[in-house]
């Protein structure tokens, strides 16, 4: 079974600085997908970034980028130029591809609470 571990329950960062959130996972699969979701106080689940395991290039979305280390099973999220609106819970999630009998559900870590301070 797959597991996702986020070892930092809480983090804080000053506005405009850079912060990195850690995520490790365990799987015997060779192909899979990894995600970072943001959950602000409004409770919505917002997709931040997605990485496909067969792609060696790290995904980027504006101020958000990942450091994907497949051999180490590590998937960290870097937020550059942090903004007050980045304050939220951040969840790392794993998904097996739909082919091969997977139901395509997400397996989540426990989350990291990020506070951006002015």
């Amino acid at each position: 079974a797959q597991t996702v571990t986020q070892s930092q329950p809480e983090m804080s960062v000053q506005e405009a600085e850079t912060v990195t959130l850690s995520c490790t996972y365990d799987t015997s699969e060779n192909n899979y997908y990894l995600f970072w979701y943001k959950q602000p106080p409004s409770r919505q689940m917002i997709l931040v970034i997605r990485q496909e395991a067969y792609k060696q290039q790290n995904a980027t979305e504006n101020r958000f980028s990942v450091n994907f280390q497949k051999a180490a099973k590590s998937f960290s999220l870097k937020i550059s130029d942090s903004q007050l609106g980045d304050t939220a819970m951040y969840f790392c999630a794993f998904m097996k591809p739909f082919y091969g009998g997977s139901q395509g559900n997400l397996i989540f870590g426990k989350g990291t609470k990020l506070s951006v301070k002015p």
Partner: protein
Amino acid sequence: NAGVTQTPKFRILKIGQSMTLQCTQDMNHNYMYWYRQDPGMGLKLIYYSVGAGITDKGEVPNGYNVSRSTTEDFPLRLELAAPSQTSVYFCASSYAGQGEYSNQPQHFGDGTRLSIL
């Protein structure tokens, strides 16, 4: 474009009562999911559906039932509410198909906060 819509947003139930959490999506997604999120935890899968008429259990199905009579709707039923079912419930949907449309990310509803007293 509404996406995934969940109702109600909040509900308080007494122990032993029953209720149905509604979920509908307008994106013609074939896969739908119900998750629960307990305080300080990530989401856990309750049930999922791969299409109309087909449902299956996830990691934490006890105390819940689902049905999928149409592509759009995927209601979650609590028959005898228990305090352990106090949680936030999320419905999600995605499309699994061929080629570039395979393995699309899941779209989530805004959640239902349910308290059992």
